[in-house]
């Protein structure tokens, strides 16, 4: 039964699969709350709005690039392997990660038609702020989703999503590390796996 809380909530937040950045200056809880409210409203408007799935996916990709510190994702997700990867591999990883994020968002659109979003509270956590929200979708139990917001060069950006105590950036990092360790620590294996997944998803869409 204890497996239920995180696994249900994980589905809710992947459209904003987010990651990590080096903190610069503190952001206030009110700023973070306003940012998440505005971002959530935009997200809900796109998911519930008109247009084809392709149009929605394109709009969501644009939104995610605005509100998520996507470029720092690789640094965190690669973890210690960032020191092993060559500059070319790192560059390829970032490109593939952007692409995978886009596909994952597209995958989620159909499942979350009719989603609604309520911002509950904001709590400082060091230089970051945890904004607690409730996400509800038809025929799904409401899920508590936490958004970690930090100041990124003067702009608030999402750096992690917490669902029932599970961090998406940690989960993704462990997922990717699993592939690398299974292949003797070769970053190339991760890049191949990412490329294969993109090819597979492209073929099925």
């Amino acid at each position, binding site marked *: 039964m204890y497996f239920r809380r995180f696994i249900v909530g994980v589905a809710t937040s992947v459209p904003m699969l987010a990651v990590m950045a080096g903190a610069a200056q503190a952001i206030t809880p009110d700023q973070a709350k306003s940012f998440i409210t505005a971002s959530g409203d935009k997200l809900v408007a796109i998911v519930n709005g008109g247009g084809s799935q392709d149009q929605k996916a394109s709009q969501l990709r644009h939104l995610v690039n605005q509100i998520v510190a996507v470029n720092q994702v690789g640094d965190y997700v690669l973890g210690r392997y960032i020191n092993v990867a060559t500059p070319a591999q790192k560059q390829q990883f970032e490109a593939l990660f952007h692409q995978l994020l886009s596909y994952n968002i597209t995958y989620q659109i159909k499942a979350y038609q009719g989603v609604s979003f309520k911002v509950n509270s904001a709590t400082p956590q060091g230089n970051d702020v945890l904004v607690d929200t409730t996400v509800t979708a038809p025929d799904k139990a409401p899920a508590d989703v936490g958004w970690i917001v930090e100041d990124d060069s003067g702009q608030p950006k999402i750096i992690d999503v917490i669902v029932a105590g599970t961090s998406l950036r940690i989960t993704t990092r462990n*997922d990717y590390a699993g592939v690398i360790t299974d292949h003797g620590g070769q970053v190339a294996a991760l890049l191949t796996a990412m490329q294969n997944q993109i090819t597979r998803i492209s073929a099925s869409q």
Partner: protein
Amino acid sequence: MTNLNRRLRRGLALTVPALITATALSGCATPPPKSDTADYQAYQQLNDPLEPTNRAFFKVNRTLDTYVMKPVAEGYVAITTQGIRNHVTDFTSNIDEPARMLNFMAEGYPADAGTSLVRFLVNSTIGIGGIFDPASAIGYPKTSTDFGITLATWGVPAGPYLYLPLFGPSGARDVWNLPVQWFATPMEAAPASTALNDFGHAEDGINLINTRATYLQPIDQIDATALDPYATFRSLYRQSRASELQEVKQHDHRTWPDWYSRPAK
């Protein structure tokens, strides 16, 4: 045959073949040399020395799921509403409430144990056998716990990760929750009867299907997006357990006699 004996036989029939198979197929991951500091630390941190065996059972469970559990759960979802499924969750959760009460007592959290008792009494009566959850509405919300969490509060470390045939993700500490959960039900306290046994079987079955139905979309999502679903489930399981332990520790406080100063929360 007593109810206890029947449940014991049923439990052994399920778990013993699984454990024998697990032992027979037991394979250990080869640790990296200690001279390779980063890799060795990562291996230690992963704490999954039985990874090859765990991955084998992961595949077995996923195959069973693909051909049995998932189709059944999809059929169940097709003929039920979210409201009905929520009531089924409330019902099966209520049956587990006495076990939660005992665990909270063992953990030294009497306020939460009291909450579990009130929840069981209120939901079993006003909530019509637990189908409804009026206890939450009157200020007694559910807090999860189990024997694995109890052992954690006693200081028992999580130990190596285990992926069990049929039962799924677990660990050297959490695996002890299985036998405790099996016997700590109200049905064990009632006089044995065929009707009660049938009820127990039905409750186990509906709980399994209802739980799988809850996971339909999230598991599909993990399958579609994760590069290594085994590593993803392992990560989610461990984070979830750590979070539950943290929640139990923060939720209640141990009560102390008035003549002692209350420890800071």
